[in-house]
């Protein structure tokens, strides 16, 4: 042999110019504005097709579940397969009402922002099943560490929407005294942790809370939510590492709504493997769920919660859904994605699908649905009136500005008492 492979390699190393130039891949979504929506790359399991392992199954024998998609509702609205939960009509109707209330609330607040009554708003349109079904599957004493798009958790837990509006308007009803931008809610009473603008920080905090619960011999568990984009933050890695190492009783939810502002989920690394598959490397079980299927979200959450409660540790749940509206009131999605993409989303709308299921069960009708929507709309409208009577953003009906100097520390800070005087309060 004249040319040994070893010599060939040396030759290549000495003359790199002979190689083809390297190229860098920059992921691009399947469709941009003006192009037809394209979901041909989505891999969707058939409803009822994914297995349901026993609660104590080892994470290593569940890897397939990170790549499948747990779905319960079929195209006609029937609940099929091993994940179909045994839920009463009352529970389903309560979930439907929560989703409707969340959507109507979002729409009213969005419009209020457009009318200049609040500075900012974030809708959760299309993702209502995530919060409504997960809240139903958790105990109300379980602690939630949400991102800014889980307002439905508060609504599901009965937090007064008057207070939510007070927060959005920063008016005299605002429980956070005008300190936070709209939608950064907090309610200790409802086990809803104070929302931060810094993405992902709550994920590891939830793990710490769960560690505290386990250290104390408590029975409560924690749950946290991040979006697909936030999985790229270091806190995501911290959370999975700590959750795995200490077997913390926590549910780590990734709401994959396909978009992080203008970046499609491929920019966060979602093209190469589902976000659920991240869990595999940490030795954590993962469930990948149709996020627009109330029953599937409920069943998966219930499974993970029971697993955590029985000391089997954390579960990563990827909730596969679609951000149907703009990222926020400061965003225009028509500049980066097809205008009809949300309408073409193959997993449909969570409210329409639960409605169809209830009708299929014989427990609901179009008329009853219309009446419920009307009732919810009237309720939100009435509350909005009351909220606005207590002030809207910019009309100076706020808590006293002197309160902005309070509460930096538990005890008053002498520096701030001085600065408050300086400011004239």
């Amino acid at each position: 042999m004249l040319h040994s492979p070893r010599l060939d390699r040396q030759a290549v190393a000495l003359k790199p110019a002979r190689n083809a130039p390297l190229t860098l891949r920059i992921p691009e979504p399947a469709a941009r504005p003006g192009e037809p929506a394209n979901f041909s790359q989505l891999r969707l399991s058939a409803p009822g097709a994914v297995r349901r392992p026993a609660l104590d199954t080892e994470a290593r024998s569940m890897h397939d579940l990170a790549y499948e998609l747990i779905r319960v509702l079929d195209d006609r609205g029937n609940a099929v397969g091993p994940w179909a939960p045994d839920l009463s009509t009352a529970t389903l109707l309560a979930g439907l009402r929560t989703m409707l209330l969340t959507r109507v609330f979002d729409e009213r607040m969005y419009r209020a922002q457009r009318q200049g009554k609040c500075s900012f708003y974030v809708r959760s349109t299309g993702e209502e099943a995530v919060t409504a079904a997960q809240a139903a599957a958790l105990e109300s004493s379980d602690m939630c560490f949400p991102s800014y798009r889980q307002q439905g958790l508060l609504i599901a837990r009965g937090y007064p929407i008057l207070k939510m509006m007070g927060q959005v308007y920063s008016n005299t009803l605002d429980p956070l005294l005008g300190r936070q931008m709209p939608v950064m809610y907090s309610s200790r009473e409802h086990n809803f942790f104070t929302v931060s603008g810094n993405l992902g920080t709550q994920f590891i905090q939830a793990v710490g809370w769960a560690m505290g619960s386990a250290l104390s011999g408590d029975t409560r568990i924690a749950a946290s939510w991040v979006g697909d984009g936030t999985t790229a933050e270091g806190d995501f890695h911290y959370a999975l590492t700590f959750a795995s190492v200490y077997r913390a009783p926590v549910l780590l939810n990734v709401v994959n709504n396909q978009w992080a502002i203008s970046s499609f989920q491929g920019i966060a690394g979602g093209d190469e493997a589902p976000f659920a598959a991240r869990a595999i490397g940490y030795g954590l079980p993962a469930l990948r769920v149709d996020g627009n299927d109330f029953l599937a979200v409920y069943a998966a959450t219930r499974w993970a919660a029971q697993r955590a409660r029985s000391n089997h540790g954390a579960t990563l749940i990827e909730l596969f859904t679609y951000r149907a509206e703009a990222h926020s009131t400061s965003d225009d999605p028509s500049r980066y994605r097809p205008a009809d993409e949300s309408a073409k989303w193959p997993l449909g709308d969570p409210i329409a699908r639960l409605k169809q299921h209830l009708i299929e069960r014989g427990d609901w009708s179009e008329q009853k649905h219309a009446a419920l929507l009307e009732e919810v709309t009237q309720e939100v409208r009435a509350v909005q009136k009351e909220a606005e009577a207590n002030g809207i953003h910019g009309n100076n009906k706020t808590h006293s500005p002197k309160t902005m100097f309070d509460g930096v520390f538990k005890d008053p800070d002498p520096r701030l008492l001085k600065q408050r005087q300086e400011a004239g309060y």
Partner: protein
Amino acid sequence: MATMNMIQALNSAMATMMTRDPKVVVFGEDVGYFGGVFRATDGLQKKFGRHRCFDTPIAEGGIVGAAIGMGAYGMRPVVEIQFADYIYPAFDQITSEAARIRYRSAGEFGVPIVVRSPYGGGIFGGQTHSQSPEALFTHVVGLKVVIPSTPYDAKGLLISAIEDDDPVMFFEPKRLYTGPFDGRHDVAVKPWSVHPASEVPEDYYKVPLGKASVVREGDEVTVLAYGTMVHVALAAAKESGVDAEVIDLRSLIPLDMETIADSVNKTGRCIVVHEATKTSGFGAELAALVQRECFYQLEAPVERVTGWDIPYPHAFEWQYFPGPARVGAALRQALEA
């Protein structure tokens, strides 16, 4: 009373609080079984069990993030960052979260955590085992910043920090762990046992946050110092013959402005000394406060003797470190002004 060095005093503070309060938990890198790279948590796991004192993954952001969540649950975590130089991965959790959670939730949630971290130079620690990042944290509203200079204060201040309901950054001058180093690197360092502040009660006691200590009374110049620089300032006063009043601030936030102002109004002169780099260091804040509060009594400009505005060098340790000669020169200069 027992004779303790600073490490033993810190260890005693944690043990005391773990005994008194089941909510106190201690964790960090190597703090569990091994007892910490500086031995500060030695024996705690054995005494209190793995659920009270345990090892963590090497993830500073994870350590502080988990502590915040645990604090929100109702525990009192005391976490260790192995070197202050490695605190930056946790900066987001400390500044965006721990410091603001009480304020942003209008008091619904508090963060009763202590972040302990060895800091400061003088040990040939080079760039990443010598830094003094306290000013990064004094600038963050919602944090308390505490730095002891003796075993007695270390225990009493740490107990106060653990009992405090707000997040406390607790920087420990590692140069002082085993003895009171005064910057004279050519002289053998004496152990703490020959220093009166090594007499430490074995039980519970507190040194309050926000109270400075006048460690040497004097009439000619006020020296504001903390950590290792307290001992450097004392040596400088002795060597220079200047009758300096040396104040150990002990906590930077909250700051004992009353003790500072009383002293400067008496002496009419003020030198600020710290190891940290000069520009935007905590000395700048002190100088601004002193000139505002004591303007009509000042007889000389407020001077700062600090580390140079360079990354902490290895081979040039003693050219960087503000030792007694540099501090002494500043004292004499202040008298001439």
